[in-house]
């Protein structure tokens, strides 16, 4: 910079301030052409960084620097972080491809309304790279335009050849950017056009769906009037009335030392700014503050970096020598420090390949009124002040600063720039955020609550559809929302025409059947009684080779405590004999009969005891005479299976101390779990999408062979392409079953409070089991109430999807009605209505079976 330019900049008279606004000539995929330049635009993918450990976080920053420093070096770059609203309408449109059964349109409409109510911001990160900065002289062009204006002939434009040339350059640039940690994709024409138009009007909330523009005039994109005032801008609509108030803020001072991970993530934090509402009727509500960011930056080449450092060091040294020669004797501490720091930096540039980045960060806040804009501005300033970053409103230069934030413009206000090392700049984590869940073909189950909020999708049938592992694990302590999540998933699967069976151990799921009925899905509560004798016989589930062992274990479990000694060998021998016999349909009942007919009095007594148990309602289904009547339905719908009289032993009672009912209940639970698998394996159900939900599986682990049994079922589920959802309060127990862990494609982790359980959950979520993770797992179940007291937060969990992304999610039910129906509270409507199970009627809606 020459002395003249330095003085001009000092006095705010540099020529860039007077430059005309960018004159847009053409927009194409990834490209915006202006009179004087051409800019390539890329969309940056959000990285799922919220739950990174320190090591992962540091590695990603270093990989990012390594990946992009060569590509972006010495180029004028423009980073834009802009926001839109997630719209319910768009969600409805996307859902048309997902559902097929019941009144799914109403289900989707309810969810869409809820999305609109939540006013969720949607972040878009765009990176502009100037690929031609010397296209035409703006001054010459002005002269040519004036002349053509006078003559009334067509003026400037772009040729097809020129566009092709630029598009070729962009393609070349896109490849390494896509492979880098930026995951950059060429921005579509529609997104570029939306971004440009948005700056002018400030009233566009939703970006267009891609590839919708078929032809339009560019002047429509830039239509709008912006009037700069001393400290703010006013945006005017077509009728000339104020449509929005805005203010461009300058981030002018950063802490000298920036450490990661921590508060250094100044661009990631952009989405967490809030303020307290003071409007009448809303006083005290916390409202999000949306601030757009525009950062023009240049990653200096090694040569430029060294020159900058050398120049400063030379000047500082000259000052030191000059002061020593005169009465000052020594220089100020700042100059001494500059000399020392630049010396160290030069060493790092030469040895470690350090880069310097010069950037000009600006934030734009808007409001429907001046007061709202002012409140937003104050909230942004206060938010960054807490991080040690000075954000200041720029009086008398709103015009220049606003123009500077426009795509295709340039740095106009030079004297408020910042120079940082590569680590300090990339520690801003502009690409970071929360990204979890299915991206398409899945309904919303809640919202991500991390640094970038958004809707979170989950398809409980996804594993089967992808041909991937099919088990979803839900872990956490009681009363945190596990059952609600399972019931929501059952509804989602039901609308996709699936066969859904929920094993309702605690007799609290009738509301699900009510709700499914209300939304036009076939649904019923299925209660097991004596008439279903033999329906859950393990001989029906396993083949003749595997069945004897499974049946023997089952009968041993049921056997009275005093007969345990002989039960194992006797039952296995009897079951093997029956399996090898010529019976067309071997059964547990036949096995018991064989035992009872033994000549040994002890064995016969065991048989008699088992016959007694097999005549109870629960025992009949497991080991009673085969009646041929099934409990479970075999057509698509939502089926809630209940076992009246089930009394599972609590964790404090040892297996040896279980009473007859508890032993029978445990055997019945295992038998019906196996039975659901057997139904799912029917030939005519092979191609049908299936979801089987088993809550409370930790209770299974209380038996000696429980782990093996669960492992066996998980593998069977995968083989049958049946999607399983298991819920457990015991993450440690599940994490020890390798076969089940291997089958887990998705995990939801709710609050757990003991260190052992938290570590096990961390492993299942593929997070580092350390003190920080333990704190996160404990604290996610609490929140601050409006009175400032801690209260329980239900439905808040960590969701690890099949892509191995993990983030915080709040499970959200679309309406209060649904919430009431799926409530597991004892006083909820669904459990308080008079449930005459025979009255459940199948909905008449046609269900299109998945083919």
């Amino acid at each position: 910079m020459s002395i003249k330019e330095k003085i001009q900049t000092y006095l705010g008279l540099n020529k860039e301030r007077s430059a005309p606004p960018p004159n847009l000539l053409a927009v194409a995929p990834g490209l915006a052409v202006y009179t004087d330049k051409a800019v390539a635009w890329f969309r940056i993918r959000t990285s799922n960084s919220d739950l990174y450990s320190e090591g992962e976080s540091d590695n990603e920053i270093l990989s990012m620097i390594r990946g992009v420093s060569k590509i972006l070096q010495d180029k004028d770059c423009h980073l834009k972080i802009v926001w839109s609203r997630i719209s319910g309408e768009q969600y409805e449109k996307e859902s048309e491809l997902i559902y097929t059964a019941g009144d799914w349109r109403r289900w989707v409409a309810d969810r869409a309304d809820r999305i609109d109510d939540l006013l969720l911001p949607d972040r878009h990160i765009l990176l502009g790279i100037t690929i031609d900065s010397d296209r035409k002289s703006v001054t010459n062009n002005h002269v040519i335009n004036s002349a053509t204006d006078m003559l009334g002939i067509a003026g400037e434009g772009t040729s097809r050849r020129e566009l092709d040339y630029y598009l070729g350059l962009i393609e070349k640039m896109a490849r390494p950017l896509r492979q880098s940690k930026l995951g950059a994709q060429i921005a579509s024409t529609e997104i570029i056009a939306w971004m440009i138009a948005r700056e002018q009007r400030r009233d566009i909330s939703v970006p267009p769906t891609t590839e919708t523009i078929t032809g339009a005039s560019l002047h429509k994109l830039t239509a709008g009037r912006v009037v700069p005032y001393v400290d703010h801008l006013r945006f005017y609509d077509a009728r000339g009335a104020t449509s929005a108030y805005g203010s461009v803020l300058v981030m002018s001072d950063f802490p000298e030392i920036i450490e990661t991970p921590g508060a250094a993530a100044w661009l990631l934090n952009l989405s967490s700014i809030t303020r307290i509402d003071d409007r009448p009727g809303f006083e005290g509500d916390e409202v999000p503050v949306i601030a757009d960011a525009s950062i023009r930056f240049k990653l200096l080449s090694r040569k430029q970096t060294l020159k900058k450092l050398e120049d400063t060091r030379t000047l500082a040294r000259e000052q030191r020598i000059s002061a020593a020669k005169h009465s000052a004797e020594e220089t100020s501490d700042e100059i001494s420090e500059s000399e020392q720091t630049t010396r160290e930096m030069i060493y790092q540039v030469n040895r470690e390949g350090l880069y310097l980045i010069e950037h000009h960060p600006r934030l734009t806040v808007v409001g429907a009124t001046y007061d709202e804009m002012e409140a937003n501005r104050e909230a942004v300033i206060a938010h960054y002040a807490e991080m040690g970053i000075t954000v200041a409103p720029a009086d008398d230069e709103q015009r220049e600063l606003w123009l500077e934030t426009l795509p295709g413009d340039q740095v106009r206000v030079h004297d408020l720039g910042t120079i940082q090392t590569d680590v300090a700049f990339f520690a801003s984590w502009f690409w970071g955020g929360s990204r979890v869940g299915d991206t398409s073909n899945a309904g919303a189950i809640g919202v991500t609550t991390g640094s970038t909020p958004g809707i979170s999708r989950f398809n409980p049938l996804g594993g089967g559809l992808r041909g991937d592992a099919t088990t979803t694990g839900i872990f956490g302590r009681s009363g945190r929302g596990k059952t609600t999540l399972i019931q929501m998933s059952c509804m989602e699967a039901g609308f996709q025409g699936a066969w859904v069976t929920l094993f309702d151990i605690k007799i609290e799921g009738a509301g699900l059947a009510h709700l499914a009925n209300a939304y036009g899905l076939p649904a019923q509560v299925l209660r097991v009684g004596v008439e279903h004798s033999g329906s859950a016989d393990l001989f029906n589930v396993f083949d003749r080779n595997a069945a004897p062992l499974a049946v023997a274990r089952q009968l041993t479990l049921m056997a009275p405590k005093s007969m345990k000694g002989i039960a194992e060998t006797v039952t296995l021998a009897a079951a093997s004999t029956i399996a090898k016999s010529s019976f067309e349909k071997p059964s547990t009942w036949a096995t018991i009969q064989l035992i009872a007919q033994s000549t040994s009095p002890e064995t016969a007594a065991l048989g008699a005891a088992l016959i007694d148990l097999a005549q109870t309602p629960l025992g009949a289904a497991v080991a009673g005479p085969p009646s041929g009547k099934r409990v479970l339905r075999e057509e698509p719908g939502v089926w809630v299976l209940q076992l009246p009289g089930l009394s599972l032993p609590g964790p404090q009672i040892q297996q040896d101390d279980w009473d007859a009912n508890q032993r029978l209940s445990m055997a019945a639970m295992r038998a019906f779990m196996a039975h659901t698998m057997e139904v799912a394996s029917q030939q005519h159900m092979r191609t049908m999408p299936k979801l089987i939900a088993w809550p409370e599986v930790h209770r299974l682990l209380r038996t000696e062979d429980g782990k093996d049994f669960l492992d066996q079922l998980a593998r069977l589920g995968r083989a049958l392409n049946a999607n399983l959802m298991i819920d457990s309060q015991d993450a440690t127990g599940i994490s020890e079953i390798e076969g089940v862990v291997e089958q887990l494609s998705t995990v939801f982790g709710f609050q757990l409070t003991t260190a052992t359980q938290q570590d096990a959950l961390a492993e299942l979520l593929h997070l580092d089991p350390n003190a920080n993770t333990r704190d996160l797992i404990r604290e996610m179940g609490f929140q601050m109430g409006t009175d400032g007291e801690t209260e329980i937060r239900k439905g808040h969990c960590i969701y690890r999807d099949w892509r191995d992304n993990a983030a915080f999610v709040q499970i959200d039910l679309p309406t209060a009605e649904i919430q009431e129906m799926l409530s597991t509270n004892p006083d909820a409507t669904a459990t308080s209505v008079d449930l005459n199970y025979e009255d459940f009627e199948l909905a008449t809606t046609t269900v299109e079976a998945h083919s």
Partner: protein
Amino acid sequence: MLEGKTLTKTLDVEAKQHEVLGLDLGEGIPRHQLFLGVAIVFVWVGLLFLVFGAPTPKTVMIYILPPILILVIGTQPYEFQPRRRLLTQWSLKSRFIAKGSRAIIRSGARPPTRHDSIPLRDRVTVDQLRQLFIPGAKRIELNPAISDHTHTRVGSLILTNRRAVKLVSSTAAKELSKK
């Protein structure tokens, strides 16, 4: 843990002049102040000299005092942007009053006329002048009363010969590339 550095201040060394024409200046005077001071004195005195001629004992203060005041006050940091000096803000305010409040219409496609500027009373207020000329002055008008007026359409919306209408959609681009 990684550590990054902000080097803005490190690289912005305020050089001092410790000696001028053999005269030791003690702790030194910032060079930019010295340079500005010389320039301001030269311009001010030159201007007065051209208009009124050489100073007399009675008018000598008019020749000396204003440049000194400008220099002393103007080089103080601006309360609301410590990286700036008041002199810069004076310059920016002058620029804003003159042309900084002109509307930007259709991203500059139609040049603004004088009707598109805000009223003078909105461009500068007494409180703003107080902040600009009294170092360290706090803001009094937290919510300045600014006139709310609508802008009526003046002149044509866009110059008629601007043909800039090339908008190639993603689909169209794919088709073009196939050809």
